[in-house]
């Protein structure tokens, strides 16, 4: 019985990682147009928004919370970016303002959760609607497309003829930071404790509310960074950018073995989950599966990803009992 939770976590990570490799190999072999460098760079570029938000979302879910307003924060950042650009402000000024806005959005979520003790699921469903509403007020139905060329090139281009988008490199840096933060620092360690038992964490002197506030703020920051990237990557700032992205992020993170009840999972698993979802979406697009059907697949994956680890755990329990 002793190592069920541990072995389950390891096993599920491995399952998702293996699944990702299988899907990639299968697609290389059997899906027309998948294996060329250009398509792969599209795959990575289109998956980056999910991946960027998945970093803080993983930490948040490990600590037992969730933020569903991330896509709206991203949309709001894009909208503000477009509106300020229309006003003629320099992009070098706009970007820090948008990031600051993301910090504020995250801080609002965090304060509502930690100061008022509200459940994050409810709070962020509320701000999901509110932030998107503000985005529409700010930009209306405009689409801003004329951002400076070097920014657009950076967000959508790739390194030479390789499959690596430029933007993938800074992502790798952020990924490394997040892995270290979650798995190798006292901060990360405290998040696992908070997620597994908030009360016990408090009795161990861990500053639970402060850690959560930091996480929500970081999530807001990363969501706005994603919003900026989104607008530049697709060369379009609209109020409804990234709508529904939170569903993909949560699905991917849970698929990667992060326990929805908190306290369990690895960032490696979460990122494997993200790129598994990204690869499936890419393959479906190549096969002309409609966007609506893709959402259905995401939804089914979300259910399976919550179910999968539980079934694995049940199997482990049964096996442990019958091995006696």
């Amino acid at each position: 019985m002793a190592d069920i939770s541990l072995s389950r976590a390891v096993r599920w990570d491995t399952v998702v990682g293996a699944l990702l490799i299988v899907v990639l190999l299968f697609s290389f072999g059997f899906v027309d147009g998948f294996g060329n460098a250009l398509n792969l760079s599209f795959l990575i570029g289109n998956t980056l928004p999910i991946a960027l938000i998945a970093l803080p979302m993983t930490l948040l879910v490990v600590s037992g919370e969730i933020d569903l307003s991330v896509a709206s924060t991203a949309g709001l950042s894009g909208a503000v970016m477009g509106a300020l650009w229309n006003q003629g402000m320099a992009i070098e000024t706009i970007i820090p303002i948008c990031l600051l806005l993301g910090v504020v959005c995250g801080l609002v979520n965090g304060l509502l959760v930690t100061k008022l003790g509200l459940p994050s699921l409810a709070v962020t469903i509320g701000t999901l609607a509110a932030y998107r509403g503000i985005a529409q007020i700010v930009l209306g139905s405009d689409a801003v497309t004329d951002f400076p060329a070097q920014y657009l090139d950076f967000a959508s281009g790739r390194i030479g003829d390789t499959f690596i988008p430029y933007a993938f490199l800074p992502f790798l840096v952020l990924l490394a930071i997040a892995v270290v933060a979650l798995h190798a620092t006292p901060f990360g360690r405290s998040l696992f404790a908070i997620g597994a038992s908030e009360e016990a964490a408090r009795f161990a002197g861990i500053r639970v509310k402060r850690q959560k506030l930091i996480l929500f703020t970081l999530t807001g920051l990363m969501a706005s960074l994603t919003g900026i990237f989104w607008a530049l990557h697709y060369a379009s700032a609209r109020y409804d950018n990234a709508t529904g992205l939170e569903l993909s992020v949560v699905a991917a993170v849970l698929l990667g073995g992060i326990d929805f009840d908190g306290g369990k999972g690895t960032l490696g698993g979460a990122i494997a989950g993200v790129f598994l979802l990204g690869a499936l979406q890419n393959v479906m697009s190549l096969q002309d599966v409609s966007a609506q059907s893709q959402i259905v697949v995401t939804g089914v994956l979300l259910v399976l990803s919550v179910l999968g680890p539980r079934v694995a755990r049940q199997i482990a329990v049964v096996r442990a009992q019958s091995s006696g």
Partner: protein
Amino acid sequence: MTHPSTTGPAPVLALRDVSKSFGAVRALRDVSLELFPGEVHALAGENGAGKSTLIKTLAGVHRPDTGQVLLDGAPVAFHGPGDARDAGIAVIYQEPTLFPDLSIAENIYMGRRPRRALGRIDHKATHNATAALMERLGVELDPDRPARGLSIADQQIVEIAKALSFDARVLIMDEPTAALTGSEVARLFGVVRTLREQGAAVLFISHRLEEIFEICQRVTTLRDGAWIASEPLDGMTEDDLVRRMVGRDLDELYPKQEVEPGEVALSVRRLTREGVFTDVSFEVRHGEIVGLAGLVGAGRTEVARAIFGIDRWDAGEVSVRGRALVNGAPSTAMSAGLALVPEDRRAQGLVMDMSIERNIGLTGLRTTVKAGLMDRGAERSRSLDWAVRLQVKYARIADTVNTLSGGNQQKVVLAKWLATGPRVLIVDEPTRGIDVGTKAEVHRLLSQLAADGVAVLMISSDLPEILGMADRVLVMHEGRLTAEIPRSDATEETVMAAATGRAAA
């Protein structure tokens, strides 16, 4: 096992040569037990002796690997708790789980309430049936009162009534008194005696030996999964029973060392949390063990929580070695040298899904750090060091703490806090629900800590423990400190008088 053949009735429930293993762990080895109608039978043994497995076997949760369960002399195979319940076997747990928003009557008749025409629920019949059960138990509880807010003692009564409503003939009571106050225990024992007189067989589990001698007629002792003895309690002493349980003579249960108190280590001045406790002032000196006694609900735990910073206080001040603590900030209390071993080890003391290593490591997140990163090596050696020093029994340090017995879990909590090198240690019910051997170890540890100059504040509902270990006894009653009694004057009478609000001695 032998039982006087002169006894008329056959055993209502019996185990014959039952063995049960979980993986490599042999939880029960050839254990036999006979429960007769009209007896209260004690099940004694240290944590990990196999008591829980035995109970679960009787209750149909586990099936024996070998051996038989006999009901009225005939072998039976329970396929689940439902089978055992239908056979008239009921288990009353330490902490019952009632539906808080349903009434007492609804809890008892949940899912099988009397019906009237057209399938409508007959509230009146439910009420009357419940009232009849309460009368049979000799207890006054309003059947229509919601379960929310009932004391644990009352909740147990409801569980017992529920068992009677199933016509239970065998009641298994798993540490029912662990969370009860003295008067609640007395009432529970009244109920148990009534049931016995009505012909029920009761299997009673408690770590409090004096309770076993008070309420039980016979005792079966288990040690390391093996049956040791089944015998009448008449003529046995507590020492006899302890020897059966631990297999050797136990060193003194309260090994208190005389220590000359030093400087004031913990000073609490006029501490108040509105509606919870009022104007609490006391000091604890280095080398002292100060007992904090009182009835459950007197505010002792709440004072400890406020001192450590879990809850905020409304007025007053707390200082550790002359340094004022910040209101509501456990982390600053820790860095001032304060440690709190909380009351509820499963919810507050430990992260149950985390390993022994990481649980102990949780208090070292600021010290086992190198260049901002966790120093895994330092964390492991710190955890191993303290687990070994406290003689925690575990297979691997990476095992989760929920695989440990209660006594070993408590040792992990102690290890976690001693690893911080506290100068002031608050322990809240440090030996609740742990076996007598581990209890003696914990007492020896506290005594040694005090001898090393640690100031110890010990909250306990176990009066002999307070009297045996404390240099001074503080007593709380309804949120106020009502007495401070030096060791020489502390007796059950003086402490209980202050705890119940009668004129302090």
